[in-house]
């Protein structure tokens, strides 16, 4: 409170300064050990033999094709999940219907299923020994050990992200503004574009960012369905594993450092959004 207060006075809702210092130090020390040390390790190992070695390893055709594949997967999975997220949030927040709670639970389901189980489900559905899979292989469009399987795996594990960010914000916004636009003669699409979208854009961007980070970094589900064919179905995380297991430490960590930078960018943008648009995201955080 006021700095002129005598030293003996302590605000009733604060702990003693000594306690505050001790708790802060303990918590930060643990964070350094658990969070920051691994991060430093990634860059230390990547750059341990100099910039040149690290950058050269990234220019390797195998690494380049992994980067290309990861970008391709994200370019397909993230827009699809974004469309899904917007549609699901619209359905859930603009209409009243029976079974809404069940629908929300089903959308959240991928969050609580192990990525490896997700991969297993894809293999059982579209693998060569299932009837759908056999048909697709015959038609020349295999899913498992090919791009569609990897995209599907990435989509499943990131399925709820966009919807989860949008729903709380849209619940908070209510329906009045859309209804007003409609009474003024706006079409449904125009109402969405000019009324709803401006209200949800930051939450939407936030959801897309999280979805993208997770899709590019997905390992468990993808490792089950990718088949790990070098230069073809090995995404960046899969390539990291292969390089690491071959003791190509610098190459593995260089690629890991690229993904870590992606994580930084995601977190930086997220923090920026939170500071600039605290109100629009407040509902999402309370969720």
């Amino acid at each position, binding site marked *: 409170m006021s700095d002129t207060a005598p030293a003996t006075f*302590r605000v009733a809702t604060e702990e003693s300064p000594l306690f505050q210092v001790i708790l802060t130090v303990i918590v930060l020390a643990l964070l350094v050990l658990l969070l920051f040390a691994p991060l430093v390790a990634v860059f230390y190992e990547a750059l341990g033999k100099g910039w040149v070695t690290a950058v050269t390893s990234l220019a390797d055709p195998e690494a380049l094709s992994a980067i290309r594949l990861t970008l391709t997967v994200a370019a397909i999975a993230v827009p699809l999940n974004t469309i899904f997220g917007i549609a699901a949030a619209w359905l859930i927040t603009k209409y009243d219907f029976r079974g809404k709670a069940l629908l929300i639970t089903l959308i959240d389901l991928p969050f609580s299923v192990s990525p490896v189980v997700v991969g297993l489900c894809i293999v059982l559905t579209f693998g060569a020994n299932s009837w759908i899979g056999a048909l697709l292989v015959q038609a020349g469009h295999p899913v498992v050990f090919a791009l569609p399987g990897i995209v599907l795996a990435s989509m499943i594990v990131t399925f709820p992200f966009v919807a989860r960010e949008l729903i709380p914000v849209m619940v908070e916004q209510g329906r009045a503004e859309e209804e007003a636009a409609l009474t003024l003669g706006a079409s449904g699409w125009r109402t969405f574009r000019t009324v709803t979208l401006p209200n949800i854009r930051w939450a939407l961007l936030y959801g897309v960012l999280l979805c993208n980070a997770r899709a590019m970094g997905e390992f468990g589900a993808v490792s089950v369905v990718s088949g790990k064919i070098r230069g073809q179905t090995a995404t960046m995380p899969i390539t990291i594993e292969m390089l690491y297991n071959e003791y190509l430490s610098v190459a593995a960590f260089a690629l890991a450092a690229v993904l870590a930078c992606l994580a930084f960018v995601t977190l930086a943008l997220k923090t920026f959004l939170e500071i600039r648009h605290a109100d629009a995201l407040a509902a999402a955080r309370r969720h």
Partner: protein
Amino acid sequence: MHIDIDEISKLFGTTAALSPVSLAIPSGALVALLGPSGSGKTTLLRILGGLEFPTSGRVLFDGQDATGLSVQDRRVGFVFQSYALFRHMTVFDNIAYGLNARPRATRPQKAEIARRVTKLLELIQLPDIGARYPSQLSGGQRQRVALARALAIEPRMLLLDEPFGALDAKVRKELRQGLRDLHDTTGLTTIFVTHDQEEAMELADLVVVMSMGRIEQIGKPQDIRAKPASAFVREFISA
């Protein structure tokens, strides 16, 4: 207990919430701190309760300097505007809280605590709600539970911040009489903050009119009404 406020001032940063104010409150009085928002009345109440510390000046309880006394040691019954009931506790546990919080040496026996809580529930005329949670009570019931909780610690005085602020007009009138009765049975020095001049005039023995961190007038309701000390007071009490 009589209370002396001796040249109390309070600065928040560079803005003065209270310019030096002095006030003597006789033992057993029912006092209203009346004023518009920003007049410093709540700050003064919180300083008496030990929740805020004055920038300068002293607070005396029965002639003893209590300025540096911690909230915990002040033993004032404080009723908050929002009532601040503990939502995860039953009404019984809310009222028993202050007794259970005492160090083991001075803590009453379980049976004694139960006896006192039951008595307080009877005092607020809600004998059957001990097992309920605050979310299951009406606004008026919550206010009375907050009163009972404050009384449970056998306070040396009762401080109430806008005690009727969150209630609708009808319940407000009923509970005013309730507070008057409670004051008369317990005999506690009672100070409440209000922005409602009718409430202050009807309920209090002594009204302290405040504005912009200063005391404009101190007096009995009828005296203030008959002889407003300033243009502000005249305007405010006729509103």
